């Protein structure tokens, strides 16, 4: 039993690879961070309501920096995008198959981008590289022109499998508070307020003292989302977040996500959703990247021009929705054929 385990990677706990910068993490943007804190819906400036000047100024600068919100989702990328993925390639071992083959795309501040692709096409690998958990074999990911070498403090990731990513020994409240453990800049009260707000956003108020094992699957995934929200990331990465919950719960969680994006729109929360569910991608996103079969690359990029606010019943029956869906099916069918021959060639190699 003792002998079996040495095969694990030595670095599964450590930072990625040797290229980690000495400081460990890219410079945190404390100013924008604090503006994030100030511009939450709870203490958004209201007419006639006294607001601390400090909060106002930092929010204004924030708005100046990122004047475009979600409303202008159809816009073409202007200026420098918040996230730029450049020719990303990954091979797990030198003679192993290519998992990602030259992935390139960029994401603007406040965008909701969905990435769809057939299952097993390397979506999760891509996401792990984007958030700095996995070192790419070639290419790079830049966050505001800073190369990502380790998980940046502005990103949060929601995993597909809540049973694996939640901490079952912690209560809901302590799971959600977990990301704030390292935040010395926040007082105890601020942390408590953030946690309460995040839990309320996902509709779990009253379940704070429960443990994950005592909740249903959908509720556990809500905890996972709340945990990411409590961190107040500028970029929220979602790896098939609703793949393991039932259809009805999924619709509820999708709308929660849209609400969250709306709530945090002022501070420009950028969403990057990886999914194999085409309908989900169209329903949620402003822009969709369609990936090819493995090794994955961007096969097509399209803009979703659906009116908001979106609704589960109406939006999904719009002709435009159906048109986009048919189109993506087309693209994926095409890329499936191409990828099929490529995949076959690779598997013999």
């Amino acid at each position: 039993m003792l002998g079996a385990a040495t095969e694990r990677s030595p670095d599964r706990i450590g930072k990625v690879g040797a290229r980690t910068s000495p400081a460990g993490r890219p410079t945190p943007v404390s100013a924008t961070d604090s503006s994030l804190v100030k511009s939450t819906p709870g203490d958004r400036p209201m007419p006639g309501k006294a607001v601390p000047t400090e909060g106002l100024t930092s929010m204004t600068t924030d708005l100046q920096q990122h004047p475009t919100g979600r409303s202008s989702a159809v816009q073409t990328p202007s200026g420098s995008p918040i996230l730029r993925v450049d020719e990303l390639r990954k091979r797990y071992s030198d003679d192993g198959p290519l998992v990602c083959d030259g992935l390139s795309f960029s994401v603007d501040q406040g965008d909701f981008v969905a990435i769809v692709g057939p299952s097993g096409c390397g979506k999760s690998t891509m996401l792990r590289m984007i958030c700095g958990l996995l070192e790419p074999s070639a290419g790079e990911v830049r966050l505001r022109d800073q190369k990502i070498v380790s998980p940046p403090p502005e990103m949060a990731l929601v995993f597909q499998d809540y049973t694996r990513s939640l901490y079952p020994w912690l209560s809901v409240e302590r799971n959600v508070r977990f990301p704030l453990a390292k935040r010395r800049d926040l007082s105890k009260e601020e942390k408590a307020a953030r946690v309460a707000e995040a839990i309320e956003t996902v509709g779990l108020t009253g379940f704070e003292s429960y443990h994950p094992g005592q909740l249903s699957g959908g509720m556990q995934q809500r905890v996972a989302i709340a945990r990411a929200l409590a961190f107040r990331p500028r970029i929220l990465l979602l790896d098939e977040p609703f793949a393991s919950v039932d259809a009805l719960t999924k619709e509820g969680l999708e709308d929660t996500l849209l609400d969250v994006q709306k709530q945090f729109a002022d501070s420009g929360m950028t969403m990057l959703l990886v999914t194999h569910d085409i309908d989900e991608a169209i329903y949620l996103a402003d822009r969709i990247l369609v990936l090819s079969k493995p090794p994955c690359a961007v096969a097509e990029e399209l803009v979703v021009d659906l009116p908001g606010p979106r609704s589960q019943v109406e939006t999904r029956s719009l002709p435009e929705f159906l048109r986009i869906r048919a189109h993506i099916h087309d693209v994926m069918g095409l890329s499936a054929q191409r990828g099929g021959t490529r995949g076959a060639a690779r598997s013999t190699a």
Partner: protein
Amino acid sequence: MTARFSSLGLRLLPLALPIALLVAWEYFGRTLGNVYLPPLSSVFQTLKDDWFFDHTLSDLLPSLQRFVVGYLLGSTIGIGLGIAIGSSRRVAQFLEPTLEFLRALPAVAIIPVAVLIFGLGGGMRVAVIVFGVLFPVLVNTTVGARSCRQERIDVARMYGLSRLQIIRRVVLPSALPMISAGLRVALPIALIMMVVSELVGGQNGIGFYLLTGQSLFNIPAMFAALFILGVLGNVINAGYAKLERRWLFWANNV
């Protein structure tokens, strides 16, 4: 009426065999008159005379003391080493061959060596218990630490926790159910090592009392010691099960 009666019968069923055995013991002890099978009542008489409370203080207490110290020390070392091996490949490569070799040794075989190193005092007996406890805890902790889901580690890395913090706040708690299983297995082993260590050049302890009873042909005393050990083992196991249910309730439905 019948239903209630049969449910009462069902509840008594587990007690039937022990009672029958004890009755048979008393019966054959009286009728056979064999020195090696004293009647149960004389064993109980010895229990009452010796263990309320002279020998409880002079033998049971020192035994328990060594048991507790040895068990805690062995568990602590086992958990520490196990976490280190389970979370670092380098530590694993460095330590595993040695530990693998030591683990294969029957724990009691260590006694003569321990006598040479520690003499015949309490230190030797504690060391023997430590050696017996160490490996089941170590192996389980290693496996538990290694089975920690990558996603759990990734979450902590995303939020900027350092390697040590991840080990303390994620890997260790993840391994707790496995560690606890190891600790449970180690309990009876610690008990065995406690008794065995007292059979060698002992000055006190339950094992010493047991051996004295045997060598002085005080057979009731010998059986009384077995009674004490049986009760002790059961109390310890039940107590541990209770603690485990309270502390690891979250592990049942994960």
